[in-house]
């Protein structure tokens, strides 16, 4: 598997660290309540299909990336800088 970092180009999977489903971009308010925090921290959609994930280009430019990837074929459709995604969503 290779991921195409928007800054560094196509790189080997080993340069990247997987963090999980891209939920960290919309973190609940500190006092949002236990349900919101449980959903954020633990509950996962866990789809067999497309989803957005957070990967970290640890051995490259050290950028956080939002990778749109298919969990059964491992096909990667899109890689964006997490910063840009958060800005567009107004959560940055």
């Amino acid at each position, binding site marked *: 598997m290779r991921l195409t970092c928007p800054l560094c180009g196509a790189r080997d999977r080993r340069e990247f660290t997987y963090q999980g489903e891209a939920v960290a971009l919309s973190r609940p308010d500190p006092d949002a309540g236990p349900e919101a925090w449980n959903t954020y921290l633990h509950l*996962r*959609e866990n*789809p067999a299909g497309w989803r957005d994930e957070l990967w970290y280009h640890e051995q490259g430019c050290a950028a956080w990336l939002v990778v749109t990837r298919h969990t059964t074929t491992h096909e990667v459709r899109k890689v964006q800088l997490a910063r840009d995604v958060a800005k567009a969503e107004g959560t940055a």
Partner: protein
Amino acid sequence: MRFSALKILKEGLTGNRGWAPHWRDPAPKPEYDALIIGGGGHGLSTAYYLASQHGMSNIAVLEKGYLGGGNIGRNTTIVRANYGLPGNSEFYSHSLKLWERLEEELNYNVMHSQRGIVNLFHSDGARDAAARRGNAMINQGDDAILLDRAGVRRMLPFLDFDNARFPIYGGLYHPRGGTARHDAVAWGYARGADQRGVDLIQNCEVTGIDIENGAVTGVQTTRGPIRAKKVAMITAGRSGQVAAMAGMRLPIESHVLQAFVTEGLKPVLDTVVTFGMGHFYISQSDKGGLVFGGDIDMYASYAQRGNLPTAEHVIEAGMALMPMIGRAKLLRSWGGIMDMSPDGSPIIDRTHIDGLFLNTGWCYGGFKAVPASGHCMAHLMATGRPHEAAARFRLDRFETGQGLMDEEATGSQHNLH
């Protein structure tokens, strides 16, 4: 049909014409007292104990593929009771005791072999941790022996004791640990359940869960609707999709775990060895293949195949630990889909929907759990109360933060186990 040495002898002399299928192939009935979704190890053992311990035989197991085609037929078969935390300790201890009488109980050769397990350590701190774990195991009533370097060398002279990065300081030996034949465990439970009247329905994918007024009423399947007031979701890596049919989201992420086997070799390794620092463990199957594996591939996946970087990592660790493995030819590698929970421990519990039960979160360690998981799940489904050995496997522990069982002490968050 009962298996015995005499029967094998007789069949051997008469052309093996007297063997009958081990279970029926029934069509689904419109209604059962209970349904089990998933014909893996845990679903089949649950069905068996519902019938054998609780007299519930008007039940069915619904399997989308064939019995034993999931993780139960893909794992590396290590059976052990060397957990350290309350909750896990008593559960795996219970499971090992069930293993020890399983073959007699099922009249089935599951090839359970208590060849022992050695967990290696490579520093003084790790020795202290191993001693502590060993004491926890002994307190639980199980067995553990702390081996020094010479003790390990006597058992496993071919390891690289002076590896520059991870020299071997000793090992924690668990003599009652070992291996079993994975498919035979599924088949033995399937046969035992079938003999007690359980319908094992294959090629029957559950596509919907029917809920009325907060209570489960049945399921929709590719072989038509089936009614039942009790339904158990026991689908390992597919738990997320099945729970979604009941409108639930689970604290589970599915990951692929790989394993590898070499060509058959003469006996060389008569125990199980784990090299935790390298994420590597190995045993030798009765056919002679060296069976080994390591960590998950470390990204969410439903592909039952892994990626090369992990294969490389596992094989490098194998070479570091026992260089002689380099002379063996690798025959096959494969993958299975693991139901990873945030704290690395499982869930055996009711859901907020009446009559709907959940069994999941086995991560990479659910084979050894098959007997106790089914035993405790059946108890919960039949009596409505958790079995004491599995009372801590609660679904709400993540929400409340109470009773988390983070065996590896890496944190109770996704993707840390």
